[in-house]
């Protein structure tokens, strides 16, 4: 009996002990993360981004190495958030554990700026930084309602038409200049279920410019308005190409995970992708012979999308001066030159763009040309909700379960109800 009692006490103390030691080690960890200086008297700045592909990570590491060489008193702690980036960033900001400097997509920017968790950067800017060097539409994407700048774009991407040279030659098809030509070409290039003429991502981020091409608006007054008959009319051809012509497929239907993969595997003769596809295709499918052209025109008008990502600073950054040093290097002429040297992203600074000369590269010229007329993927604080509802229900029309008009009408109602509930 006595022995049993002793054993119980021993077990309990063991459990309590381990629980306590668990706590204390947890505290230590949190403590060391909070400290901004380490033993060598160096200042530590945390930087977070999504990883991207290995080429992208190598380039960023190269840029950071250069920064640490020129700024010996600052140490950069780079953290990769590989999945659900915005969810993680938001949760960490709420918990007061946000990184000092991080990536922010233009599309998410208005909502995050509005919450007031970002540091306005105007007061840090010096003449050397040369703010007028940035492409204006890209810089404007990170301006708050108060007119202050909350982030500097690290680069941008636009969409262009990628075509498989061999397939076009075999079918005797010219590179399409208009959407009507593209539709005809897609029909000729399709070979049953093995090769589709055109690969499309049924997502708002990729179709936004097309949706607005007939004069309708996807977003009006920060609310969804994509059930507009003009938007439906503009998007109907995509659905028809899938259901009637059977010349178009989404990557999932052929077992690919992205448009560029579908294109690389030879399951689509044409896709509309961004400059990120070029290094991907060169590495994964080195034998593929392909060309690029500007996105086909609709009713004689040119249109494409531009996507941009900025570096922003956390308002609660421990050492804002050091954080600005890093941010201004990464978006400065020197840092941007290293970062954009491989053309993963195009330089958002005019001077860097001129120096790197991507407009003379035959594959990238159409992508650079798109920048002058592209629509920036951003529209108010509610675009994430609007996009989610659009993507969810557009698919049902794309697959032929109901008419496009019906699907978009319901998606718009759902989105606006959600927006109203949030107010």
């Amino acid at each position: 009996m006595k022995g049993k009692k002793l054993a119980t006490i021993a077990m309990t103390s063991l459990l309590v002990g381990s629980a306590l030691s668990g706590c204390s080690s947890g505290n230590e960890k949190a403590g060391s993360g909070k400290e901004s200086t380490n033993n060598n008297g160096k200042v530590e700045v945390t930087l977070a981004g999504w990883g991207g592909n290995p080429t992208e990570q190598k380039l960023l590491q190269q840029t950071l190495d250069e920064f640490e060489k020129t700024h010996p008193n600052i140490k950069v702690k780079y953290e990769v958030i590989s999945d659900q980036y915005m969810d993680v960033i938001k949760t960490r900001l709420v918990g007061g554990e946000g990184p000092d400097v991080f990536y922010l997509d233009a599309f998410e920017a208005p909502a995050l700026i509005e919450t007031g968790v970002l540091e306005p950067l105007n007061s840090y800017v010096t003449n050397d930084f040369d703010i007028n060097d940035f492409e204006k539409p890209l810089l404007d994407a990170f301006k708050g309602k108060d007119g202050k700048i909350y982030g500097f774009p690290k680069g941008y991407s636009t969409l262009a038409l990628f075509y498989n040279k061999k397939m076009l030659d075999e079918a005797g098809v010219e590179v399409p200049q208009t959407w009507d030509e593209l539709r005809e070409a897609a029909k000729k290039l399709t070979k049953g279920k093995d090769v589709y003429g055109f690969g499309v991502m049924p997502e708002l981020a990729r179709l936004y410019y097309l949706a607005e091409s007939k004069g309708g608006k996807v977003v009006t007054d920060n609310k969804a308005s994509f059930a507009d008959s003009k938007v439906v009319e503009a998007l109907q051809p995509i659905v028809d190409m899938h259901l009637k012509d059977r010349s178009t497929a989404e990557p999932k239907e052929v077992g690919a995970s992205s448009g560029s993969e579908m294109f690389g595997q030879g399951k689509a003769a044409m896709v509309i992708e961004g400059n990120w596809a070029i290094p991907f295709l060169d590495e994964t499918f080195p034998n593929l012979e392909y060309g690029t052209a500007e996105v086909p025109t609709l009713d004689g008008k040119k249109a494409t999308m531009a996507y941009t990502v900025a570096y922003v600073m956390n308002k609660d950054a421990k050492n804002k001066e050091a954080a600005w040093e890093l941010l201004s290097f990464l978006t400065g002429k020197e840092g941007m030159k290293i970062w954009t040297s491989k053309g993963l992203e195009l330089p958002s600074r005019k001077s860097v763009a001129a120096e790197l000369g991507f407009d003379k590269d035959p594959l990238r010229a159409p992508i650079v040309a798109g920048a002058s007329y592209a629509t920036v993927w951003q529209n108010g604080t509610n675009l994430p909700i609007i996009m989610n509802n659009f993507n969810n229900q557009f698919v049902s029309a794309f697959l032929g379960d109901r008419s496009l008009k019906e699907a978009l009408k319901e998606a718009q109602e759902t989105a606006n109800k959600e927006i109203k509930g949030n107010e």
Partner: protein
Amino acid sequence: MRKKAWREAGAAYALLSPTLFVLLLFIIGPILFIVFLSFHKVQLLGATSFEFVGIDNFKRMGGDLRAKIALWNTIKYVIIVVPCQTVLALILAATLNAGLKGQKWFRIIYFLPTLTSSAVLTLIFMWMYNQNGLINHVLAAIGLPTYNWLGDPKVALSAIMAMNIWSTAPYFMVIYLAALQDIPDSLYEAAELDGANALQKFWYVTVPYLRPVTSFVVIMGLIGTFQLFDQSYIFSAGSGGPDNSTLTIVLLIYQYAFKTLGTMGYAAALAFILALIILMATWLQRKFSKEESLY
């Protein structure tokens, strides 16, 4: 005497205190906090604010189409998965208990899916469900139609159902196996004397004897299936698509809590309602099975 009783109680509480502390901090505390949150409009990012809004969050559910879809998807999922996995678990357990050769090995092999993390399982299944994946190849080989499992709203939820039945049935199988060992042989002997065949023995001896265990299995199954999240989250990359077909209540709660800014209160209200639904489903199950067991 009284002093002794006090001392004993004191010692008991002292020994209980670590557990009580952990329970209060990590279980009871969050439950109360959720109730608090569900009556407030909560803004966590930037200037943190809690604004009392009464039952607005609950009223909002009435007009929320996505909440209705999520509830319907979840109920469909529960109604199909719980009976299937229970029956499958029972059949698996009965065959393993029949004294086959090498049944220990089968037991281990059957149990493997349960040991694998659900996220890894989902990723593996997404490979197999791929348009050019294993499952479509097998279907085509035996002359059945193939499906776009991941992209077609009509089959996406069924794909998740099949996967989950396959992976959770073995877990309940082990529980059934343990219970099967407990059935006294004398019952079977008596049945044999009465001239019962194998099927009759199973139906009239095994199944009734396992009733308390079945009750436990169904309740655990109900709770587990109502909380479906990770599989549909990975399947749809967090969106609940295609066409909201894999949107479940917990996924919706996640979206409102972490994706949209400032809807933590509504998410809490949804979580509260989900808890009530599970409680009610469990209560109904108990009432129908009329088994006052120790579970």
